[in-house]
């Protein structure tokens, strides 16, 4: 009777089922004749309803139930899929989502569902040819007072086919019984040892609240005989009478069966499919783990990585063979461990992507556009922390593409394009990064307009505008204080926006690039790190200080002769594989105290990049590559120039991590 422990499972599974309903509804809209899609929706909705009813969320199960009726009518081909029907169904999904999120926040999941229910009813009765409700309303037949819904029916059918008995049990307590709840509990205890209680009248909740007189009824699935059960229940004190009768679906009123026969064969096949599916799911062998535990595991592992670095250093110093061997083994094992922990924290990007189709659908309707949205690579995995953060930036970019990128059908036809715009959302792995692309075939970025606007808004000056590359012009739309929308609309273009996208992505250690061709469309490419907490760095030395430069931004390291350094605009530059790369002396930038003025004949240079731009960071020497745990400098020192964080080295000392992005302008 304790339901709290199931609540988490209920919420998770409800969300999954609802997502299936949502996805498949959108598929159905595209392919409205494919009834197997309806089957799938039906199945998910049905599971959802069953679970909601079990957990006692009546509004939730009620609404799902009405949805099911509509779906059933579609399945029976009594109802055709129209946009109106889809709208109401998708609205219902939204209601359901609200309810579930309410439940997950500790609410009761109650919500005013009258309006949507009546809409569903209208569809169901107005357009359905001959409504044959498969559910049974409260049925006061002489035989019993049970109303059996489809979920319970399924369970009963399944139990029967497994050779178990179904009993209808009426328990009467003595009149002077004081602790009725306790007795009920004891009866349930006895019954649950011997089988499974499917339903009770009054409901379990009412029984717990003593909202009954002397007797209650229930349906039990059990392999015990009726006499045994009766005997066992009678052993509970203060029970005066127990009637155990076999219960059968066939004893339901005849006319109902007739009405339901149309469904019967289908239902049973449904049942089989369901059992097959649940067996498959069980074979997957997955468990749900609280994310907090994974975080704790990750934190502990980070500590271990620090100590691993320390061990490596000690064994190098001691130069003892056995120790070296052991330490190498530990390093290897912890490397494997790190991979496993990191993959454990990976979740498919689908978790973010899956809400977009409906959003785009809504947007296109609001804006009167036609858009075909495709999603690729939804199975691409990313660290949870990254997933949590990229939702909003993506929403922004997609809204932007739908609102500003893709033209209205008329405009598209005028320019000789297909009436329906294309929007592609794509995710893929490459190296240590994940790329997310948002590609539309809309009107592209009008660079003249962008330049004019940028100058007008003071983002750049007139002189600067002449020297910008086309890529740089495109990227102006990411600067703060910039909005190309002629009119401010609800969808996007509030003047804030794309610059927030850029800063969010950069704060995640990622970057964003724009490619655009006027009249052909625009592609936004977001590059994200796989994980945020453990990164590979190059350790370098400047005087007595050690700094770490993230490997992801390094192109290569080089040692160059002093004579190879050239001057351009009074700045030191080098010729690096045909590119002119400016040098940045880290000693100067970081104001490293120096007690000697030794002019070295050779410069050690780390060539880093930010997008297309490069810079050569001059250091004293390289130490080597290392995996480090990224740590913040604390709240007190949150805004230090060109330092993105710190890490603890093997010897326990702190090394600062260089933010090379800040050094390239």
């Amino acid at each position: 009777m304790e339901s709290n422990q199931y609540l988490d499972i209920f919420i998770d599974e409800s969300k999954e089922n609802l997502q299936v309903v949502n996805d498949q509804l959108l598929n159905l809209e595209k392919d409205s004749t494919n009834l197997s899609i309806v089957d799938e929706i039906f199945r998910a909705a049905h599971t959802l309803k069953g679970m909601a009813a079990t957990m006692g969320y009546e509004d939730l199960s009620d609404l799902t139930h009405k949805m099911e009726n509509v779906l059933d009518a579609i399945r029976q081909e009594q109802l055709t899929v129209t946009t109106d029907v889809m709208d109401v169904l998708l609205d219902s999904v939204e209601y359901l989502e609200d309810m579930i999120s309410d439940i997950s926040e500790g609410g009761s999941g109650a919500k005013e569902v009258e309006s949507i229910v009546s809409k569903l009813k209208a569809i169901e009765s107005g357009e359905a040819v001959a409504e044959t409700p498969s559910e049974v309303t409260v049925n006061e037949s002489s035989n019993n007072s049970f109303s059996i819904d489809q979920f319970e029916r399924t369970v009963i059918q399944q139990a029967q086919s497994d050779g178990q008995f179904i009993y209808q049990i009426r328990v009467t307590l003595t009149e002077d019984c004081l602790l009725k709840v306790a007795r009920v509990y004891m009866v349930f205890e006895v019954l649950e040892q011997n089988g499974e209680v499917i339903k009770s009248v009054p409901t379990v909740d009412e029984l717990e609240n003593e909202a009954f007189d002397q007797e209650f009824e229930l349906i039990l699935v059990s392999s015990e005989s009726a006499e045994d059960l009766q005997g066992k229940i009678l052993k509970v004190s203060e029970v005066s009478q127990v009637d155990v009768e076999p219960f059968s679906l066939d004893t339901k009123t005849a006319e109902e069966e007739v009405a339901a026969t149309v469904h019967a064969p289908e239902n049973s096949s449904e049942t089989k499919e369901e059992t097959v599916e649940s067996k498959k799911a069980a074979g997957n062998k997955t468990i749900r783990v609280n994310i907090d535990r994974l975080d704790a595991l990750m934190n502990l592992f980070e500590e271990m990585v620090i100590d691993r670095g320390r061990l490596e250093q000690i064994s190098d110093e001691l130069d003892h063979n056995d120790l070296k061997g052991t330490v190498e083994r530990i390093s290897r094992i912890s490397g494997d461990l790190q991979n496993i922990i990191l993959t454990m924290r990976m979740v498919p990007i689908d978790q973010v992507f899956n809400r977009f189709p409906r959003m785009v659908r809504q947007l296109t309707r609001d804006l009167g556009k036609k858009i075909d949205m495709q999603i690729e690579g939804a199975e691409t995995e990313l660290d949870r922390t990254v997933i949590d953060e990229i939702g909003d930036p993506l929403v922004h970019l997609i809204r932007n593409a739908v609102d500003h990128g893709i033209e209205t059908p008329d405009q598209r036809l005028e320019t000789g394009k297909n009436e329906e715009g294309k929007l592609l959302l794509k995710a893929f792995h490459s190296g240590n990064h994940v790329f997310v692309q948002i590609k539309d075939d809309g009107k592209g970025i009008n660079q003249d307009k962008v330049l004019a606007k940028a100058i007008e808004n003071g983002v750049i000056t007139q002189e600067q505008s002449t020297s910008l590359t086309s890529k740089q012009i495109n990227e102006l739309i990411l600067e703060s204080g910039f909005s190309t929308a002629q009119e401010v609309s609800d969808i996007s273009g509030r003047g804030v926006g794309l610059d927030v996208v850029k800063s969010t992505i950069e704060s995640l250690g990622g970057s964003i690039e724009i490619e655009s061709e006027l009249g052909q469309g625009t592609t936004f490419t977001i590059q994200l790190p796989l994980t945020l907490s453990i990164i590979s760095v190059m350790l370098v030395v400047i005087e007595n200080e050690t700094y770490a430069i993230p490997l992801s931004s390094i192109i290569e390291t080089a040692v160059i002769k002093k004579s190879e350094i050239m001057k351009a605009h009074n700045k030191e530059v080098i010729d690096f594989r045909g590119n002119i790369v400016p040098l940045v002396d880290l000693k100067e930038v970081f104001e490293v105290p120096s007690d000697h003025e030794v002019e070295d004949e050779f410069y050690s240079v780390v060539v880093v990049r930010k997008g297309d731009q490069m810079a050569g960071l001059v250091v004293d020497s390289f130490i080597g590559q290392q995996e480090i745990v990224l740590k913040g400098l604390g709240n007190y020192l949150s805004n230090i120039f060109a330092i993105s964080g710190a890490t603890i080295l093997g010897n326990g000392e702190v090394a600062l991590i260089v933010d090379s992005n800040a050094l390239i302008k």
Partner: protein
Amino acid sequence: MSEVVQNEKVIVFQLKDEEYGVPIENVGSIERIQEITRVPRAPRFVKGVMNLRGVITPIIDLRERFDLEQTAYTESTRIIIVTIGDKNVGMIVDAANDVVDVPQNQVEPSPEVVGSVNADYIRGVAKIDQRLLVLLNLDKVLTEEEFDHLSTVES
């Protein structure tokens, strides 16, 4: 009628030849001096960051902060780790060796007593027996506004 006197427990530390006090509830621990990594372009009095059992902790030099002359660290030099709001900071002091109860009625708000030092990071001065204790306002010790103000005065 006996007066109920509120006592405040403070950690006493030394800086040059004066004694200062910080409320004990702000103090996390007292550490010996250890390797500090300089943070470039940080405020002048920020010595750098230190590895405090796996947590990167900023360290400020109180001598520098209070414009006292620099001396070499000695055996008795300590770092007092204090927590103010969401910030964890270590303060380098010459020595830290005492915990005393300061009766509230012994605290004089006026900093004039100390003479030349007249700064808002001083909360008050307490006289206990023959000792003078300068009580610090930690919030103000840490803030950079104060530092900016000081540097403009200096220049």
